[in-house]
């Protein structure tokens, strides 16, 4: 009997791709489509730093060649944005004015950089490093830049600051405890980082916000809360990530910080699943909701969501705590971010 199933995955990151592969592996009949608003094919996000510094070329970023999708008969819709989901009719409304029907849907939309509301009025001055398109934007700006400011902080930003400093840039780091990602920075970790940075001649402001940022020609003037003034050529913002769920709101799929799912990664609407950085899951151990962080975990969630979509009932659990190396300091963290 021919099947008319159409499984759609929104999002072309590790969660979306592993979900697509699992679906195809277990079901060679159904249509499988990935829709992504990014124009560039599935890439290694962590290599973006190397990409903008010129160490890695564009092709090295690609996780797999286009032919792989052709062989697996996975339809790829790049550069297409889903504007609205209508679960009653199982229809997606795309920004370029196309309606697409699904029989089952996996949301793997990932997350976007967050800017704290008090700084949101300066957002237009900030550069980000979370997507390939960000990197493309930043790349030509970076080489002529001499002075760089970094706001917030996460593991990538520390690595990035080190890299910039090695590129002989003058780096100023505004280190915010609250915004550190994916965990809160303890005081001793913060001071260790400060110490480490001063060794690399990176100026650090700890928990001091800019109170004014203005563009002056191609540069930016920053006035800090404690009255210091500095001029920089480019400002990077690393204040953690927020799940990409805006377009889901109002559809009847429940969201809070992320898309609310149960331990099977099912949303409140039947036939719709969520996984990866956009999913918000309750965990009894933590007595809290959590959101996945990181590449591998997204992949595991993608697989789980796909298997459950196909009728299994696998339970997702936060993995064991893991030790991360932050600038020489051993830090215990898990792969989740408490909300």
């Amino acid at each position, binding site marked *: 009997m021919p099947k008319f199933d159409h499984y759609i995955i929104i999002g072309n990151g590790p969660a979306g791709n592993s979900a697509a592969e699992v679906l195809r592996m277990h079901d060679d009949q159904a249509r499988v489509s990935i829709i992504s608003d990014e*124009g*560039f*094919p599935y890439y290694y996000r962590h290599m973006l730093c190397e990409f903008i510094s010129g160490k890695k070329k564009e092709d090295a970023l690609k996780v797999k*060649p*286009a*032919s792989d*999708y*052709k062989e697996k008969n*996975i*339809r*790829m*819709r*790049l*550069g*297409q944005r889903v504007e609205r989901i209508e679960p009653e009719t199982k229809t997606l*409304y*795309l*920004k*370029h*004015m*196309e*309606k*697409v*029907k699904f029989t089952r849907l996996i949301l793997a939309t990932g997350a976007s950089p967050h800017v704290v509301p008090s700084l949101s009025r300066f957002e237009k001055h900030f550069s980000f490093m979370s997507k390939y*398109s960000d990197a*493309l*934007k930043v790349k030509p700006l970076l080489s002529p830049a001499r002075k760089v400011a970094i706001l917030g902080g996460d593991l990538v930003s520390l690595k990035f600051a080190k890299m910039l400093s090695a590129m002989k840039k003058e780096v100023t780091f505004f280190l915010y405890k609250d915004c550190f990602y994916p965990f809160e920075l303890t005081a001793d970790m913060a001071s260790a980082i400060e110490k480490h940075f001063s060794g690399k001649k990176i100026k650090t402001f700890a928990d001091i916000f800019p109170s004014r940022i203005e563009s002056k020609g191609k540069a930016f003037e920053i006035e800090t809360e404690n009255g210091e003034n500095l001029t920089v050529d480019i400002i990077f913002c690393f204040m953690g990530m927020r799940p990409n769920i805006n377009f889901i709101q109002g559809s009847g799929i429940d969201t809070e910080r992320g898309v609310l799912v149960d331990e099977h990664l099912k949303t409140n609407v039947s036939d719709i699943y969520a996984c990866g950085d956009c999913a918000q899951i309750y965990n009894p151990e933590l007595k809290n909701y959590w959101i996945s962080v990181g590449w591998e975990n997204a992949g595991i969630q993608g697989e789980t969501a796909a298997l459950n979509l196909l009728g299994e009932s696998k339970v997702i659990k936060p993995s064991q705590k893991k030790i991360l190396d932050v600038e020489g300091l051993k830090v215990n963290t898990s792969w989740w971010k408490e909300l």
Partner: protein
Amino acid sequence: MADIDIVIEICGSAGEGTISAGEILSRHMSSLGFEIMSFDSYPSEIRGFGKCVAHSRISNQQILSPGKYTDILVVLNDSHSIPQLHAVRENGVVIYDSQPPAYHEEDKSIAGWMAPGMIAYGIPLHSLANKAAGSARGRNMVALGAMAALFGIDEEGFKTSIMKRYATKKQVVIDSNVNSFEEGYVWAKKNVQKLDHLTFSKVKLRKVTQNRIIINGNQAVAQAALDSGIKLFAGYPITPATKIMEIMGKELPKRGGIMLQTEDELSAIGNVIGAGFAGKRAMTATSGPGFTLMTEMTGLAVMAEVPAVVVNSQRGGPSTGLPTKTEQSDLSLVLAGGSGDSPRIVLAPSTVEECYESTCLAFYLAEKYQTLAVLLLDFFLSNSIRNIDEPSLPDKKMLSANISPSKTDLKDYRRFQLTESGISPRALPGTPLGMFVATGLEHNERGKPAYDSKTHLEMTEKRYRKLDGILKEVSPPTWDGPKANVDIGVISWGSTAASAHEAVLKARKVGVNAAFMSSMLLVPLNVDHFVKFSAACKTILVPELNYSGQFAAHLAQYLNRPIEKLNRITGLPMPSEDIFEKIMEIADTQKR
């Protein structure tokens, strides 16, 4: 400094400005110093549901064929463009409307059909056009603007090209086009992140030494006719030859000539024959269906020995067929159409340059040999726009070719005198003592109807003898490649010949021992050269745009050997890529 050789296709619905966008693009790129070859395909409905494709190959190196694979597809109409996607390269670029007025149902949007490697840029063509000019008409210009921004084409120069194109229109039309372009440019610059690597901005261009003109086959024919001293053009509108008439309507009166738009092709060729009889150069232009009508009268020109130049720009299929598609299937009609044995001149140019050259030749030969000359173009060649070096004008000898009777001749004037050359001195009306009667009936040397077997044989032989002279007037066929021990010899004609030539050059580059031959003059055919060429080649391949292999069949009677054929009737010009593949396939077989 890089090289570039890319194909851009703009695909839309008829009436959406698809063709004009393509034209502006080609003209602008040519003005920058690029080589271009572009052509359009469009339906016979003016508006409505027909599909239009403006296809341009743009390169900084020589181009002989239009290019089979698309590097950039610009989508003005999704449903028409979906079938065009198969020609887009694996990592090609697709530009489409991201803001049409209503939702596409699933699979009606091009966005759903793109292959995984393709790069898609969604531009809100509809709303930007609306914003720029208050209507969606300017979507084509928005698309051009976006292309300029994406592929590094100078904005200001492009705007000038647009203004030039609409120079004769009202200011509001010019403005809305330029504004739409601007809107697309600015939007794309601001909002589109470039993921491809195609750019015109860093390309090394050849130095332009000679005056270059942008011209299509129809224009070249019209220009050559004007340069050859045409005095009357009579015509009836028919795709794809209409443009020749329109140019004549504009240009001919300026030179003291007349463009006569007749009520039908019967009348058109009648007027041409009338003018020819009176000693003036005249021409008509038509396509297959019109030529079929004219065969009522082509025989009259041959029989009455009146010069007449007829252009047949071929379209597809029998009957009304495929009015807006290209094909080379009128060959048999033109070689033999009409009643009785009627020798005529048939010239088939293969490039826009040759369109000019062959038209000049047609006027010269028709006048000198007092017969019908048919120029065989095709839809593609008629509409294929090229930038070419300005052609050299026909010389004095060619401009005045009539062999007039001498005083001695006039003493006892025999208009249809049997001569060695087959040419009988022709008196023009107004010439004292030269009066005669021309007729479509078989006649004797004086023009009197005569149906006896001797006269009919003598006169038929006389008319055929003209062909020997004609053959000597025209340079022999092109033979490119080794003169002996050739593995694969490719023979072609008309527009396909250019593609074939390109394919042979490419094959030789990869080490295949191939040679190429083509002849602009199809009747009379330089059989000797073809026989020699054939003898030098292990395999002969004849690619052409018809189903039955009309030229291959025509050649076979002289070559007396098996001929490999490559036939296409897709309605599109012959891709050199297909010929190349065929050559490689044959080369493979030969090795085994």
